[in-house]
């Protein structure tokens, strides 16, 4: 335990707070945790890049198309690809959409706010009118139900926002693995530092959304809207996906019958940090789709690590989910540290107190997560 220069925290997760204040991470440092986190983020980076490309493709090429049977084909529709799709030899893009919907449903941040502005509505209307210029049926439909198509465009904006967010994150994760193999990453705090630096470096990358139709570009979210990577997509993403999430489609009926779905949206706890890893592999639990995708891109050192424990590759999806959850605690640590009011090594006691209050607010959210279980492995 680190001896603080001021009063001890009374928080239930005080030990985790002290660890963060000492420059460590929520996840305890250990050689096995390092292999798991770096390895899983490598495969996650590959998968995220693929998800991101498809999300961006859908937002730009499939918007205002309502029977988009080939939306997962990224514009390349061939018989071979179709057969592979039916054989399920493919990436589960459904998971990306599930994430996008959860993020849109919980909202928060500048992106959510901007989508309710008259500017976005006007830009969306322009695109809708142009798209259905020669389609009186859809124009009539839009006139009668004037919220339907704009809502569709809001969803498309989320496709694009999440796609851009994941593009940056995948780059950070892939670089992490390269640096690990070069011997530059030697501990969990190193991992957190790497992610934190990546987040900070891209913090102000603008989030934009434009669609090209008949040679004309429609700027739905122009750069002038001022939406930035960190505050407008990363922070809402952490809140929506790491903490809140949504009941899994396959279990929602069961959850509802068992009165397990909270009445208040902010009380939802279906996010990645709460995920029950043992249920992974079960039909209807979306993390299964992500774990299936990551399974294809595991680096050799992680695969070997998995083969040496438990059921070897027999329970691979659960192991991947477990490692993934650990890695998400590292990403959360990076986000928490990146947004802290003051550096944690400050000598100023008031700044320390402010940091403490800030950390305790975060730790309130962490109380019911699987942090303790991740650290007890």
């Amino acid at each position, binding site marked *: 335990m680190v001896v603080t220069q001021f009063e001890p925290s009374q928080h239930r997760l005080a030990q985790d707070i002290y660890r963060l204040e000492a420059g460590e991470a929520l996840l305890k440092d250990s050689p096995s945790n390092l292999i798991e986190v770096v390895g899983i983020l490598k495969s996650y980076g590959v998968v995220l890049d693929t998800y991101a490309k498809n999300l961006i493709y859908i937002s730009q090429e499939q918007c205002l198309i309502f029977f988009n049977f080939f939306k997962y084909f990224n514009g390349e529709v061939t018989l071979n690809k179709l057969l592979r799709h039916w054989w399920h030899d493919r990436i589960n893009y459904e998971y990306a959409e599930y994430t996008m919907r959860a993020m849109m449903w919980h909202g928060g941040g500048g992106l959510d706010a901007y989508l309710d502005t008259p500017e976005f509505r006007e830009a969306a209307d322009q695109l809708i009118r142009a798209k259905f210029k020669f389609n009186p049926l859809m124009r009539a439909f839009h006139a009668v139900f004037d919220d339907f198509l704009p809502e569709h465009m809001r969803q498309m904006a989320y496709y694009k926002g999440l796609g851009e967010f994941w593009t940056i994150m995948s780059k950070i994760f892939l670089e992490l693995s390269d640096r690990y193999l070069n011997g530059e990453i030697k501990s969990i705090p190193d991992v957190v530092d790497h992610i934190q630096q990546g987040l900070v470096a891209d913090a102000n990358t603008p989030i934009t959304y434009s669609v090209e139709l008949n040679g004309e570009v429609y700027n739905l979210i122009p750069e002038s809207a001022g939406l930035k990577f960190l505050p407008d997509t990363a922070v809402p993403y952490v809140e929506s996906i790491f903490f809140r999430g949504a009941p899994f489609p396959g279990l929602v009926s069961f959850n509802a019958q068992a009165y397990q779905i909270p009445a208040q949206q902010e009380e939802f706890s279906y996010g990645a940090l709460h995920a029950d890893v*043992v*249920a992974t592999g079960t039909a209807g639990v979306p993390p299964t789709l992500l774990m299936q995708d990551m399974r294809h891109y595991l680096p050799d050192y992680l695969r070997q690590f998995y083969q040496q424990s438990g*059921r070897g590759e027999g*329970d691979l999806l659960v192991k991947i989910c477990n490692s993934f959850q650990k890695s998400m605690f590292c990403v959360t640590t990076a986000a928490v540290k990146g947004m802290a009011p003051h550096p944690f090594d400050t000598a100023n006691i008031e700044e320390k107190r402010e940091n403490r209050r800030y950390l305790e607010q975060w730790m309130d959210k962490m109380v019911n997560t699987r942090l303790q279980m991740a650290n007890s492995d």
Partner: protein
Amino acid sequence: MLSALIWIPVIGGIIIGFLPNQLAEKSRSLALVIGSIILAFTLAIGLQFDPNQSGLFLSESFSWLDQLGLTYYLGVDGLALPLIFINSFLTLIAIYTSSTKLARPRFYYALLLFLSAGTAGAFLAQNVLLFFLFYEVELIPLYFLIAIWGGTNRGYAATKFLLYTAISGALVLASFLGIVWLTGASSFDYDVLRSQVLPLSSQIILLLILLAGFAIKIPFFPFHTWLPDAHVEASTPISVLLAGVLLKLGTYGLLRFGIGLFPDAWNLLAPYLAIWAAVSALFGALAAIAQKDMKRVVAYSSIAHMAYILLAAAAATPLSLTAAVAQMISHGLISALLFLLVGVVGKKTGTRDVDTLRGLLNPERGLPIIGSLLILGVMASAGIPGMAGFISEFIVFRGSFSVFPIATLLCLVGTGLTAVYFLLMINRVFFGRLPLAFSNLPAVPWSDHVPAIVLAILIVTLGLQPNWLVRWSETQTASLSNFDTETLAEVRPASRSLLQPGQSIKESQWWRSL
């Protein structure tokens, strides 16, 4: 050739028992080889069988103790053949599923083979005294198999088993001795005894004694209490043999000796037997609902399902008797599958408590294949179409309904309850969230799945092709049901008072008004 089914396991058992210390670990492999040879012999015998022919198609006879009327007379017909196959097949399964890390493996495998030999001998014996000898001989290895390699309370269970089944043997012997003494027959040979004339009152007394003997073995309510204890304490392979084969000695005895030797008395007692069957079926099913140990659930289920055989035997129509044999085979396979899978669950989780286990169908960390096979076994047991259990139970009820409608309907309720207790068990054990305590269960190797998969394939195959299940015994059981009361027994005037003038016992069927 028939002797080979007895003497190959006996000689094999002796060889294994006397293996030198350094070769003790080879006893399992050697037992597997011997078990495979026995099964091959059984199949070879089966290939010589003509299903359209009734009576013995292979027999061997040597004089032994002629003064006592004991001859070494073996024979096989359509009634015994399927049971001999089940015995050989499940013996091999039992050897295969036995732990590779057993204490005293030579003794264990020798006993398993002796058990197989004793059971085969009982099914093959055509001399009732020889049947009794084999019937008693198989108790010894079984007693040791439970008493040495059983659970924590194995001593109690083994002793209880021995006491009950020894009494069963004594009653069976008393009945056989009674026939010989009362008829003055010179031999205990089955075909000699069948041709003897016996007064109806004597038949009734001897049949009641025989029924009590076999009712303990099968077992029927209220003679059943040894069975759940024996199953709970026995290791998985022994439970497989106990439920799959050894209980069938009792039902085989009912058909072979109960109907075969006392047809008139059987006809008179039939309605009471049908009621007994209904009571036993309902008791077994209701008791199964209350159980917390998975093995006990299957054990009580066994009691319920064996009662259907009594119902079919009581009805004694050609169809119901064929059904009785089919039910013996299908119950043998299904109960073997269920005990095998429950054993794997117990071995992997360390418990069989339905209140403790949960979520074992979890695809990654649970026992998904074991769970799926268990669900299949449960469906077969509950009589879901497409599996052997449906066929046998359907023809039991179809063959018995015309004779004992109320008892049959009550047994049908028992079948409905099968779904209740097994679904309760499946729901508790396999569905829901896998608890943290079981989230790191060791994987089940494919070698553990193989016997269960083979059994499951047999159950489904016989369900889809029921002719393969019933054709073996159809002709033989038809001949059993065609007994002629007037030629087989001397019905004394006193007994005739039970009948209408000019009416035979078989024609009376007074219970139809029930």
